[in-house]
Every structure is written in structure tokens, then in C-alpha cells.
């Protein structure tokens, strides 16, 4: 499944990094601790978080996340958005909380 597929299926808003919408999704990881993500996310995973600063994109890029999903309509800081565009990693927004979006993705990606 591609990032653009879950954008449609889960009605997510694309805030930046549009050039990465064709990135292939291998799974997802939900965490707000950067070292936890650094150590445990897998290549191609979606990253679900409420962190909105530029370092999120540094970690996402170094670990080759397919996209970042910001929960509860959190808005990225301008330099986070800029880096998302540079790195071709989409930032997606949802009104859902981390539990709900993770559950929906779990169902989608395991079917």
C-alpha cells in the first residue's frame, strides 16, 4: 500500500512532502520519543506522533519512514514542513488521536 492510498482511505490531510505520496508503506510505529523511534521504527513505516518540530523529519529521514502522521490536528512548525518537502516525506494530519488512527491503520495494513 502507498501513502496516497491511506490518505484516501482514512481521509487524511496532506500538509507537506507531497512528492513522497507514492512511498510504499511497510507498517507503522506510534511514539513521541525520538530515541524510541530511532531505535525501533522499520524502513518504510509510517510514524504516528504529536511532535511537531524539525527533528522529527531528521529522524524520519534517517530511518526512512514513509510518512509522518500528526494526530489531533497538531500543526507542524514551519521548519518541519520545509524539511518534509526537502526529504520527500509527507506530513499527514488527522483529527483522530493516536489510539484511534493506529487501530485503523493496523486493520488496513493487516488485511
Amino acid at each position: 500500500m502507498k501513502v496516497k492510498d491511506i490518505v484516501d482511505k482514512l481521509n487524511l490531510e496532506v500538509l507537506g512532502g507531497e512528492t513522497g505520496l507514492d512511498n510504499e508503506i511497510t507498517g507503522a510505529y506510534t511514539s513521541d520519543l525520538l530515541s524510541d523511534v530511532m531505535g525501533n521504527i522499520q524502513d518504510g513505516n509510517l510514524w504516528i506522533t504529536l511532535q511537531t518540530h524539525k527533528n522529527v523529519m531528521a529522524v524520519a529521514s534517517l530511518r526512512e519512514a514513509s510518512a509522518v502522521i500528526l494526530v489531533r490536528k497538531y500543526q507542524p512548525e514551519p521548519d518541519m514542513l520545509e524539511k518534509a518537502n526537502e526529504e520527500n516525506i509527507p506530513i499527514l494530519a488527522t483529527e483522530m488521536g493516536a489510539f484511534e488512527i493506529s487501530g485503523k491503520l493496523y486493520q488496513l495494513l493487516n488485511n
Partner: protein
Amino acid sequence: MMKLDYKIEGGDFTNAGHASSEVKKVLKKLNVDPKITRRVVVSLYEAEVNVVAHAYRGEIFVEISTNKIIIKLVDEGPGIHNVDQAMEEGYSTASEEVRQMGFGAGMGLANINKNTDELNIYSEVNKGTTVEMITYLDKN
């Protein structure tokens, strides 16, 4: 042998990860095994963030040879009072501000330890810390 050198400013979170990203590009170009590259990138990023979060300034020296990668981070800073304690997962002296960004969970050094073949830490309180990370290219 290839040598790379980067400077880090304490407190400069906007550029944290820059050296890791540059080293990753070089290792990719050199066709280093992606699994090894990942280990190097994880440990270098954590070490970089440690300097940004705790020290005043630092420098990173990277040496890539055919059989190993040696990365040394030398910083001027408060040093580490008890290295064994700092290595424990969950132990952190990071500020509240740093924690709110999602850093400072006490997982950094544990991540480094897990992702390096050899880790040496030399620290002097009120002077600074040197972290040496060695990854073997033929052993992984």
C-alpha cells in the same frame, strides 16, 4: 581511508542530525551494507543529540576504512559524573525543555551501545566527554 569532520554547537537542535545525514549519504555511495549503515546512523544520531543536549560544543571525526568505521565525538561540556549510570536505560539528566521535544528519555546511550561493535566513553567532569564508536564492516 576517508576522513570526515563536522562541528556541533551545544543547544542547536535545528541542525541536530546533520552529520548523521551526511555520513549516511557517504556510506550509501560507498555501497556499505544497509544494515550496517543503519546501525552507524542510529548510533551517530544519538551521539550527536547528546552533544547538542548536554555539551557546549563538539566535533565529530569519522574515519572510514575498508574494514571498519571509527567515529569519535569530542565535546567541551559538563562531562558525565557516572558513565555506568548514564548507560542505564531510562537514566537521563536532560532538561524539561529537551524532554518535551521527545528527547531525554534515557534511551540514547542504550541505542548507541546496541548499535556499535565497540563503544568507549572517556569523560572528565567540567571538561568534556569523548565518545568513540567502532563498527566493523567485515563482522556484521
